[in-house]
């Protein structure tokens, strides 16, 4: 059979269309997308957290409360949540510290044990940190046995009975929110106090905060303060460049924050 250029182009176009159209049907009739037509979008449950760094005084009660709420030995140097202190000097130098994860609070003007004069400091502030319960958690991605998982409402948890303790998730967390549980020897992390929030309670850290720094709530819920803040104010997340889509939103974040 002789094939002219015109015929070749025609047949080529036909076969491309013939392949693309059936495949694109898969894109149109995505189960998720269909479900969102049936249920209004706002029904999707997704926990999120807001940290207002402008209000944080560095008392460390949140870190303390977290330790008391969880079963992690109080004096072991690992933290589900911690507070960092940032001090910038006139020289441009930034000093960061978080003595004992701040569970005893910041009680002296001595970042990294250095004596600083007030006139040398240009700015200083506290940044509470916790697991960011990412939308695309890299820790969950790399767990070889599926022991860590994201719940339907967006909380990342660890199955203590299944974790093999390889540490891949710990290495893969950009925020170092994970560590080995000193007693159970499995990966451990902040759970957004899942045992509390699912019962309508607050997280231990936000209950302990006297200054209203920490807030937990649901996204897409018009009554939720967290949702209001995220949708109406200027919020930022930590290390967005990793593509994890973290769900702890910060008010008053500075670019010196690591």
């Amino acid at each position, binding site marked *: 059979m002789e094939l002219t250029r015109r015929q070749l182009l025609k047949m080529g176009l036909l076969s491309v269309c013939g392949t693309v159209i059936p495949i694109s049907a898969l894109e149109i009739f995505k189960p998720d997308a269909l479900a969102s037509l049936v249920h209004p979008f706002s029904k999707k449950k997704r926990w999120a957290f807001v940290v207002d760094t402008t209000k944080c005084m560095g008392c460390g009660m949140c870190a303390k409360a977290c330790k008391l709420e969880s079963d992690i*030995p*109080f*004096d*072991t*140097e*690992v*933290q589900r949540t*911690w507070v*960092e202190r940032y001090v910038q000097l006139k020289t441009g130098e*930034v*000093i*960061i*510290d*978080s003595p*004992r*994860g701040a569970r005893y609070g910041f009680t002296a003007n001595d970042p*990294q044990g250095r004596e600083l004069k007030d006139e040398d400091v240009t700015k200083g502030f506290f940044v509470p*940190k916790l697991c960011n319960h990412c939308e695309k958690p*890299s820790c969950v*991605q*790399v*767990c*070889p*046995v*599926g*022991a860590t998982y994201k719940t339907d409402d967006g909380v990342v948890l660890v199955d203590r009975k*299944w*974790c*093999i*303790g*390889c*540490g*891949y998730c*710990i*290495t*893969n*967390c*950009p*925020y*170092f*929110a*994970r*560590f*080995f549980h*000193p*007693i159970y*020897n*499995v990966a451990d992390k902040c759970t957004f106090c899942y045992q509390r929030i699912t019962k309508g309670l607050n997280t231990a850290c936000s209950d302990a905060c006297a200054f209203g720094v920490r807030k937990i709530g649901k996204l897409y819920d018009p009554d939720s303060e967290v949702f209001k803040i995220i949708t109406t104010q200027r919020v930022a997340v930590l290390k967005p460049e*990793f593509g994890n889509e973290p769900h702890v939103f910060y008010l008053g974040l500075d670019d010196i924050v*690591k």
Partner: protein
Amino acid sequence: MEAIQAHGALWSLKEMYTYPNEYIYWTIHIVIYPYITGLVAGAFVLSSLYHVFGKEELKPVSRFALLFSFALLLIAPSPLLFHLTQPQRSIHIMMTPHFYSAIAAFTIVYMTYMAIVLAEIWFVFRPFIVGQALEKKGILGLIYKVMTLGSYDVSEHALHVDEKITKILAFVGIPAAGLLHGYVGFIFGSVKTVPLWKTPLMPFIFLMSAIISGVAVCIFTYLIVMFVSRRFICKNTIRSMCKVLSLFLVIAFLLEGIDLVFHAYTAEESWGILSEVIFERFGFEVIFIQWIMGMIVPMIMLMLPNVGLPRAFIASTLVLIGVFMMRWDVVIGGQSMSRSLAGFLTYKIPIIPNSIEAFKEGPIPVVILLSAPFILLFIFNKVLPVFNDITSEEDCYATPEKPS
């Protein structure tokens, strides 16, 4: 009451600002795991060069390299058992593999490779096994009888088929070996939080260093065994191995070089602290041991004409040390820079085994694990001898199928 120490606090020293949970979690066992796996891949590639590409000069070492790669392969996953905090659960990787994770593929990659190596060994040694099964009595005879798997056909036709299958297995084995080690490189390369590891070149860097270390360990072991047992050493064989080694050394060097140049040239946010780790904190390890002594010096030694046995021995030993150092620098160096990019961690291997954890993470298991493949090779060699008695250079390539 004394507080329970955090996992990792025993061997990590923190400097400046590191996150509270930040310790060196991947320690010495994660250094020797890719090291041993690399030796497996390299040794196998060496044996395949004879079987697939018909490099006759390598005939005297092809069986040895094959059996040695099996001995190494058996030990390769053991460092992981020391590393896991829940080693008794390691079976979970097979029960609920989560295939988004690079580690989850381990079972499949490892088992596939194991099957290929085992099958190849069986086909290569079949005539010998059958001969011994018919000859030997007692327990040893029984072992050989089991090893024949009931196949006693050593007719010319059967041997010809064996040879063909061996060739196919050796051929399939090369990409499998590449996959095994490239995959180990992927485990590191895909960790996006560690700037030193995050590069798509990582699988290839690991693969090339695997091949050089595997060839080097074969030269090293072969020379020692032949020298100690006062056997004749085929110079052409050693020279050929050295040629392979030098070729891959060049590729490995270029790959590692281009990786560093890229890090430096693109100079992302992490480069400041990364360059401090590479050139200052790990300067001696990286520049002197890994690059100069582990790559450049052996490269020059092997490329100069008339490579003799002493030079081959020294060069291969240097390569072995250099590659070990490279694994160390990658694993420990990568974690020694804080994820906050504002501090450092120093790794101090716990020498005194005053607790289970200190013992587990200390040098004793390392010595045991690194010497285990040699012990296994010694045992295997009793059953399947791989070191031939040769008296002259001409004999090297005319060795009988049945080793004496």
